[in-house]
């Protein structure tokens, strides 16, 4: 497909959209599907078919953020806004918790073509509907800045035309026809984009390392020991570089990447293709958790569609660039999200990390230079190409540019998926967007099992890589669990340590055994049997994990313990007993058995 064809298809799609009086988008991402959005979509379609004069266009679309209140349905009227304009449709209503029974009222209401929103008039058909309307001017929606999640409410994830109409693949064709790889890398570098997989490594720097690395020519004959076990058919037969999209998202409670894959699979593919062109790769893998069947299904569809349109495969967009993408399924080990374990897993070996250096950028898949980026990282790429590095760099803080997607969960009213500019304060997220009760909230946990808890006194902090790290937590991939006074911090730490015990791969001794010993101590202290010496031992073991573990899992496994010790040390101390078994504290305000209700497996 050349740029003209792309324009034509996009224009046709837009015209078809604009021809309808109202556009109804029903969320068909996992969250809403699980509470029945497919049935709602069907009911609305049936109702609309019975009333063609209503002139409705009904689509399954992507996640609209308020996932806990699904199924969500967006109704838009008026002309379709120009892509990337940032403007919404002329009028847009969002309904939550719709059921198939609401369909007749909705369609009947739209047919009447009133311009004002449905009101709660007693007895009217629209009254129940009106009660389900969300206030789009609420901070939860208004405070969001969407780059990664942009246009999710307008994109049908299963149709490439829909993505094209939203400005999709324009960046890729622009790159292939008008920009040299170095210029693209320069653009990404200037944008200040950093990896969203947890580490925050500068993306431009990683790309240029891979671009500069000489493509490795695998040796004939005996395989290198690093690659023992790989089948000969898989191993490259010529010089090659790879691009890998890390979609293994294993943090408990995190579903940002899943949402992006399910709602805009083409956005990720486009990012991968641009990356591949920039670094000189011609083959890509999407490493997806097998627990994400819908994401996998939509990615498969998207790859087929993109290949058919000449946007993947050979001579992309009529250029000389070839790029082929395959999906690899992860088998549900958290550690396989770690880049070197991921490589081993793709090569068909046991998913275990190996020491770095050498880094994958120089010595990756089957020894070839390999670019590994996270889903959200890659989903930012097309927007940066389209709108320029300066636009992106203007979002966020000095060192953390752009936006970040978070999965909000826990003791707040509005839970779900949000995208906010970097530098927004935790207070704004928790209290304003999440409508969390001021005063009732104790701490927020960020970064999952590798992260830490930030107490309410520090909620003024801006959300960026450095300030979270300074507080002993991490940005992580974007899980955010809000905890109220009922959360016992020792138990919170114990929950995350249990996760690490389960997920340690067992390769290195400190993590394999150390995590279990830390867990035993946390349990002992939690039961009210720990002594001051145990607390000392606990800290010693935590430092050992941090300092001597082989990979990021072990190195960060102690973070939840250390950060709760830092801010809530009293909760630990209150549980201690002296050597005779008597409680050190007499008030006993902390019940040892109390569990953190927020944290669910």
């Amino acid at each position, binding site marked *: 497909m050349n740029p003209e064809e792309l324009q034509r298809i996009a224009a046709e799609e837009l015209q078809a959209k604009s021809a309808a009086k109202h556009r109804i988008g029903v969320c068909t991402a996992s969250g809403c599907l699980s509470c029945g959005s497919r049935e709602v979509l069907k009911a609305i379609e049936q109702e609309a078919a019975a009333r063609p004069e209503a002139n409705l266009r009904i689509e399954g679309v992507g996640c609209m953020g308020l996932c806990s209140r699904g199924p969500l349905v967006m109704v838009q009227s008026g002309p379709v806004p120009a892509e990337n304009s940032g403007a919404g449709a002329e009028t847009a209503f969002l309904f939550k918790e719709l059921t198939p029974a609401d369909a007749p009222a909705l369609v009947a209401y739209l047919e009447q073509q009133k311009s004002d929103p449905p009101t709660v008039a007693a007895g009217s058909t629209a009254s129940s509907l009106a009660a389900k309307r969300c206030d789009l001017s609420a901070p939860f929606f208004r405070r969001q800045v969407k780059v990664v999640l942009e246009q999710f409410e307008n994109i049908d994830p299963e149709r490439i035309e829909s993505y094209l109409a939203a400005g999709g693949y324009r960046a890729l064709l622009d790159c292939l026809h008008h920009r040299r790889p170095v210029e693209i890398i320069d653009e990404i570098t200037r944008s200040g984009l950093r990896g969203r997989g947890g580490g925050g490594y500068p993306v431009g720097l990683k790309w240029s390392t891979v671009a500069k690395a000489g493509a490795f020519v695998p040796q004939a*004959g*005996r395989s290198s*020991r690093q690659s*023992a076990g790989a089948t000969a058919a898989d191993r490259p037969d010529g010089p090659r570089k790879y691009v890998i999209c890390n979609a293994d998202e294993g943090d408990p409670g995190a579903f940002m990447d899943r949402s992006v894959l399910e709602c805009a699979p083409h956005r990720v593919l486009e990012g991968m293709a641009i990356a591949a062109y920039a670094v000189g790769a011609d083959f890509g893998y999407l490493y997806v958790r097998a627990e994400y069947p819908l994401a996998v299904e939509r990615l498969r569809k998207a790859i087929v569609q993109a290949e058919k349109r000449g946007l993947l495969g050979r001579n992309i967009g009529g250029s000389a660039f070839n790029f082929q993408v395959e999906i690899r399924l992860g088998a549900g*080990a958290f*550690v396989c999200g770690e880049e070197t374990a991921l490589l081993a897993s793709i090569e068909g070996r*046991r998913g275990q990390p*190996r*020491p770095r*250096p050498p880094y994958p950028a120089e010595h990756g898949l089957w020894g070839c230079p390999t670019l590994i980026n996270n889903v959200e990282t890659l989903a930012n790429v097309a927007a940066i190409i389209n709108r320029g590095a300066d636009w992106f760099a203007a979002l966020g803080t000095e060192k953390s540019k752009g936006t970040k997607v978070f999965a909000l969960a826990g003791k707040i009213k509005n839970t779900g998926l949000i995208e906010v500019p970097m530098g927004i304060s935790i207070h704004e997220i928790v209290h304003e967007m999440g409508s969390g009760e001021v005063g009732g909230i104790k701490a927020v946990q960020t970064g999952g099992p590798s992260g830490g808890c930030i107490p309410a006194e520090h909620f003024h902090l801006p959300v960026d890589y450095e300030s979270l790290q300074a507080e002993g937590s991490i940005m992580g991939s974007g899980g955010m669990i809000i905890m109220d006074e009922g959360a016992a911090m020792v138990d919170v730490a114990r929950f995350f340590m249990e996760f690490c*015990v*389960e*997920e*340690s*791969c*067992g*390769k*290195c*001794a*400190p993590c*394999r*055994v*150390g*995590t*279990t*010993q830390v867990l*035993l101590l946390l349990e002992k202290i939690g039961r009210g049997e720990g002594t001051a010496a145990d607390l000392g*031992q606990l800290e*010693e*073991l935590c430092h*050992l994990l*941090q*300092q*001597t*573990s*082989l990979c990021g899992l072990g*190195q960060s496994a102690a973070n939840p313990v250390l950060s709760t010790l830092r801010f809530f040390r009293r909760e630990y101390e209150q549980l201690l007993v002296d050597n005779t078994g008597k409680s050190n504290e007499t008030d006993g305000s902390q019940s040892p058995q109390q569990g953190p209700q927020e944290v669910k497996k």
Partner: protein
Amino acid sequence: MSGGRVITLQIDGRDCGADENQTILEVAQENGIFIPTLCHLNGLHPVGGCRICMVEVEGAPRPLPACVTHPAEGMRVTTDTPELRRRRRLILELMLAEGNHVCAVCVVNGHCELQELALQLGVDHLEIPALYPRREVDASHPRFGLDRNRCVLCTRCVRVCGEIEGAHTWDVMGRGLKAAIISDLNQPWGEAESCTACGKCVQVCPTGALFEKGKATGEMVKRHLHLPLLTAMRKEEEER
């Protein structure tokens, strides 16, 4: 390994010349500086698993394993500090607590690398609770035995079997504390068809986990000094 650039670095204040493809451990050994190791074995591909060989490198945020870290120009390495010693002792304690190590009734008592390391580092008792796991013993092989209770998962056996003998009988199954050495597809060793009964794994095993049947404790001395020779011979053959 050789053939790379020659560089200089400092180990424990001493100036050392090195080939950039060497490891810090190799350079230290060449210069008579002792760094304790466990999973590492000359002649096998290093994996950096036991973390006993951690050394401090100026400017690095955390200690680095000497057996897999390559030297760089001007690097300053410290191999022995009170902090490093404490860490090494704790790691060793973790490993001793992980399995069932009652030396008095062990086949390799007196010839055990783990035991020796514990003596060297001054680990004479455990401050952390022993986990007393119940792990399977495999006595199905006519000549050898495997007692997983004494395994420290160094994977020397896996590597020697795959890299030197070329049989790849051993591998690791399971995660975390449940990780265990298995033969073939988790068949009893005696039924593992790939095993050539060469005994190399037994010789490289640093503990009493792999042992020869019918040998008295005094005889269970392990011999693996010929390994580097074997590797060199194989390499020569490959290059021919």
